[in-house]
Structures are given as C-alpha cells and as structure tokens.
C-alpha cells in the first residue's frame, strides 16, 4: 500500500514531526499528569487524543497519512510511529497505550475497507495471552497438531463470561476489534459495538491508572451470527492484519518505557509485560521465527 504522503518521507521530516510531538508532550500533556499518584481524568485524556488528532499524529481518515501506524509497511513511517509513542510514553504510559490502541483500531478499520470509527478500541490477546504456541505456528503456516487446534479454538474463540478477554481503555469506547479463530472460519477480526458486549469494569487494576481494565464477553444473543453492523476482516486479509498488529504491539511497546514516577512506572511496566502475551510466550514466536520472518518483511532487517 504505497502512499504519496509517506513515499517521499525523509529522516529530516520525521525528526521535525517528532519535535512537534515532543513539544506537545512536554508542554501540554505533562502538566496534566504531574502527580503520578493522581491519575489523569478521562476527559483530559480524551481531549489529549483529540489534540493529537488535530496535530495529525493520530489520523482517522480513510487514506493513510502521517498518523501513527498508518503505514506499517514503511520502515520510516514505522520508526516515526514508535518514536512518537515513546515521546508520549515518556510523559505517561497510559496515554501512549490509549493512542497506540486507537491507531491500531483505525488501521483495522482501514483494512476492513471503511472509514475509521471514533472511540475505537482493540484487544490483541486471547483468553490466556497468546494461548501457547498455536497462534504463532498458524501464522507461520505450519501444520497444526490436534492440541494446537484445540488451543486456538479455546484461546481465540468468542469470549464468554468464563473465558473473557481483557481490555485496557478509556471508559467511553464504543467499538472494539477482537481477533477470533473458529474451526470453520479460521481467523476473522470482528468489530463489535459496545452494546453487543458484556463489559465488566475491574477497578483498581495493577497499573495504567488512567485507563480502565475491562473483562469482555460477547452477549449470548450475538454469539451465533455476527450482526450486520459489525465490520469484519476475513480470510487472508485477517491473517495479514494479525501479523501487522503483532508487529505494532512489539514496536509500540518500545514507545512506552520511560520514567514517570518510579512506582507507577514499575506497575505500568508489569502491565505492558503481560499485555498481549507474557514473556514466556514470546519464545513461541522465536520458535517459528524462520517461517515468520518473510511475512514480517523489513521488520526483521
């Protein structure tokens, strides 16, 4: 997906854009979260997301531009994305996670071929993180064992009250993208609207105090057939989206780790450590590295 706006992007442009984000983070964002033991108000946070949209750092048009994660295939655009997240994360990890998730959600909106929807969210883990090695083996095009197929179905099935998915987000999200795997359809990404989801807020989560932790499950009446108003990404496009999102997760993480209040940083790091697959699960990615690396393209260079 080449694009005139980023095709001619130079390192110089990138540094100039980063200087804008840096100024915004230090001058506008930092005063809102000076006291790390008092978490930023949700309204301030939403306003910050809108301000970043005005700056063009978050970009909600259907045509990709210079927004974060607009063009995961372009190495320079990708560097811009994680370094912009780092500028935000330097001030507050919660803001960086929210902006990252919003950008990933909009990327998925574009993959679905439609205009991005406001107040989006995305869940990148299954019930038990990555659910062992099955997802990686599948994305690496390996033949799956019976146990791996079971793991896929269990971990990436439609979430239920007993097997929920976790979401850290601003509380006013309206749409959430979930990756789902079923034996019949294989991978799909489904964008559920809030009223189709049972979202239980879990107060006093370990970190990311600015965001709310939700346990999500799909309401029983919507479990049999995906409602028409839900967008979907299916087939090969769904797999491709998966690989891109995983890469965004890994690179996005690089953006979050900066100092702001030591104990909060420690808690936030713990959350980031466990989001989207715990360290023990990342070895599965390494195990299938050879098969995966061609799909990741430039990322492995």
């Amino acid at each position, binding site marked *: 997906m080449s694009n005139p706006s980023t095709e001619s992007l130079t390192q110089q442009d990138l540094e100039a854009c980063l200087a804008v984000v840096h100024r915004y983070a230090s001058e506008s964002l930092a005063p809102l979260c000076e006291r790390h033991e008092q978490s930023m108000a949700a309204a301030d946070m939403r306003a910050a997301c809108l301000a970043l949209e005005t700056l063009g750092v978050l970009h909600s048009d259907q045509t990709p531009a210079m927004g974060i994660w607009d063009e995961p295939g372009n190495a320079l655009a990708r560097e811009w994305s994680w370094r912009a997240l780092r500028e935000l994360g330097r001030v507050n990890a919660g803001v960086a996670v929210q902006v990252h998730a919003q950008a990933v959600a909009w990327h998925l909106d574009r993959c679905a071929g439609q205009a991005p929807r406001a107040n989006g969210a995305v869940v990148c883990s299954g019930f038990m993180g990555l659910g*062992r090695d*099955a997802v990686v083996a599948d994305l690496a095009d390996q033949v799956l064992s019976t146990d791996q197929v079971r*793991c896929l179905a*269990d971990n990436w099935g439609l979430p239920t009250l007993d097997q929920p998915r976790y979401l850290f987000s601003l509380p006013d999200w309206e749409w959430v993208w979930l990756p789902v795997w079923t034996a019949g359809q294989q991978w799909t990404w489904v964008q559920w609207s809030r009223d189709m989801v049972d979202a239980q807020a879990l107060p006093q989560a370990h970190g990311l105090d600015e965001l709310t932790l939700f346990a999500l499950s799909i309401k029983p009446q919507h479990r049999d057939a995906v409602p028409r108003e839900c967008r979907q990404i299916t087939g090969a496009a769904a797999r491709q989206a998966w690989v891109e999102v995983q890469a965004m997760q890994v690179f996005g993480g690089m953006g979050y780790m900066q100092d702001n209040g030591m*104990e909060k940083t420690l*808690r936030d790091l713990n959350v980031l450590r466990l989001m989207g697959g*715990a360290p023990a699960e990342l070895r599965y990615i390494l195990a299938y590295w050879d098969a995966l690396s061609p799909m990741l393209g430039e990322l492995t260079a």
Partner: protein
Amino acid sequence: MNSLGHHALLGHVQADHPLSPRWALAQLHPLVKSVLNYRPEPLWESDTARLPWRMQVYRRRARDFAQQHLAPLALEADAQPHVPVGTLSPALREVLVAAGRQGWLTDLLPAPLGTSAWLDVGYPLVWRTCLRVEEFARACGGLMLFLSAHYLGMGPILVSGQLPLLWQTLRPAVRSTLQGDPHLFAFAITEPGAGSDAEDGHGAAANRPGLRAWRDGAGWRLRGDKVYISGGDIARQLTVFAALENEGFESWTCFLVDADMPGFEVLRTELKMGMRASSAAHLRFNDVWVPDARVVGGLRQGWALNRATLNLSRLPVGAMAVGLAQSAVDVVSDFVGQARLGGRRLIDYQDVQLTLAQMLADTSAARAMVWQGARTWTPRQAMASMVKFHCTDTAMRVIEMGMDLMGEHALPHRARLEKIYRDARLTQIFEGTNQVNRLSVIEDLQEHWLPPQPHQKARP
C-alpha cells in the same frame, strides 16, 4: 481426574499404579516403611511438623487468626481511600482490637510484661516472630505490617536492659491492649536526609543527623523530622532516635516520646504502592520536651540499640517475604488448577508444572533460610542481613514467575497477585535497602579480608 480419566495429572502415573512412588513406598518392609513412608499431606503440614511442639501450636494459631481476621479484609484494606492522619477505618480498628485481645500485639514476653505462654519462653522470640509474620503476610502484607510494625517500636525498650523501664512501659500497654484499647509503639529512625545511612555504620559516619536533642532542665528537647514511620500516626508511644547537640551519629540516643507530648506533630501519611493497610507517617518534633526518665538505654546508646534491634528485625522481614511468596504460590496454584486451555487444565501442561515447582522450591528454600537464621537468641548481622535481602529478592522472583504464568489474569485487583507484588516490593526497601543489607554482610565479615592484628593469631 485429568482429561484422560486417570486420577493423576497429565504426565504422571496415578498413586495406585505399580510404578508410582507412593505405591512403591507402601511395599517396603514394615520396619523400613514406618520410617520412610509418608502421608500425602500439604507441605505446610510437613513443615510445621518439623518444629518443636510449642512452635507448632504457635504456627497453627497464627494461621488460624490470619485466615479468620486478615484474609477476608485484605483486598478491602488495600483499596480503601486514604484516611486522614491518625484515623482508622472501622474494619481496621476491629482487626486491631481483636488482635490485641487475643494477645497478638504483646506476645514478645510472658505475663505480666506480655502475653506469650510461659511454655514458649525457651524458644527464641525472633523465631516466633518469624512464624507469626509469615502467616500474617500470607493473608495480607498490609495488615501484617499494620499489626507488626509496633513490635519494632518496642525493640529498643526491650534491648535497653532497663527492667524498671520495661515494667513501667510494657505493663500498662499490655493491660490496655488486652482490654480492647490497643496501645501501639512506633520506631522512628529514618530522616528526610538519612534513610539507608541510619542503617549502615559507614553511611552514618559520613552523615549529619537531622533530629537533634539539647539539654533543657531535667530532660531533653527534640527538634527535627522523621519520615516513613510505620504506624507513626496511630502509635501512643514512639522510640525516637536523636543526636545530641553538636555531636554526630555516635551520640545517637533513644527517647521514648508520648504522642500527646506538646510539640509532637504528624504532618501526613504517605500514599504508598503497597502494604496500604499500614500507614507511613511523616513526623515533626517541634521542641518536644522529654524527661530524663524517658531516655532509653542511656545517653549515646542509640546506635547500639538500633543495631541490636535491626539484627532482630531483619530476620522477620525475610519471613514476611516468605509469606508473600507463599501466597503467590497459593493464588497461582488455584488458578492453574481451574483455568483451562486446549481442553485441559493449565496444571496438565508440563511447562506450567516446571514453573510451579520452581516457585515452590524457591519459597521453601527461603523459608528454610529464615528458620535456620531465626533459631538463635543472638542473631548475627551477617546472617540477619543475608536472610533479609535474599528472601525478599527471592519472593519478588517467585511473584514475577506467577504473574508471567497468569498473564493478564494477574492484573485485576481481585486476582490478588498484583497486590502481593506491590506489598512485596516494600520488603526489598525497608529495614535497610537490599543493597545496604548486602554491605552489612561484608561489614560483619570484614576481618576475613584484613591482615591479622599483631595481638591476634593468624588465620589457620
């Protein structure tokens, strides 16, 4: 039952299988069997059985109290909003009163100076303390500290060796506590400019004390601040360390200050990462006058009292960490026994078993170290410090292993594990940071690396 219908975890033989170790032991010669065969009881029971009978009774009582009074309140006490200085929520007051009435706040010495059973006085009190704080911390780190910090405040009075002071101070405190009006002590050494320096000889030598005492009539006036004092805002009496005017840390003297003495002020309590049921207070002494009779252990004896108290109190910090590691093991054991993935419970995956076994072994090893170190009346600085830093670091590692195993399920407050992490983080910091404790080990052993003095015999 596992998913294959055997009464065994996946990858193991069931107990009545001819190749099961349990079955094999039952086949031994009756004489040998009576020694080598054992019942499959929980590890906690096997550990307890290793203790002398009185200590077994004590450990069981501590666990019963913790399960009945502390565990049900743990999450609520952690999440409650910050209360104004010097106040307690009704639930916390209830626990404090119950602990006091049952003797859990006064059991260092036997009656009339305490509530420990006379049958227990033959056992080192630091050992009993370790058993108690482990069980309390297993139920809740914050409530454990809430009920334990005050023993630290009693420490200098105890090691002062002044029987009249012990009598005058502890007897009314014990009586009041047993009658449902808890009389707490607090231990005040840390100053805004001297945290670790007050825990280490070399650091103290290079530091200027902040809290000062000068002569005024038949007593002393104290001026300065103390910070991060556990329970400092709810204590009725505090053992406060101050330097004498124009002298350094070697003049440190311990004063017994009443919270209602004019000039004593609690500025605030901290918002903390963990152990939130226990307050950490910033205290200010605005020329507080303390009579001579309240000098604990004599003038310029403060450093000695401090060192002796720390040698006694660093071992229990190791025990707290063991309790927290054990509670992480408890949480993770329950989780992997229930959560299912790919058609089986998590415990039926071999790599999960490997991680859990590692957590159990690390916790067991730390407990063994605490018990070994605590079975003495004369805790040595090197041992006390080794136990403190090794067990607290081990606990953090065990808890992190558990968090990695549970993944995002570890993050909600109700899952308990993230609170255990926050509670345990404090054990690496207080009673001397773990770095200072490492240096204390070497300080205590430094003769080993020094040339022998002329009057000493050469090392063999």
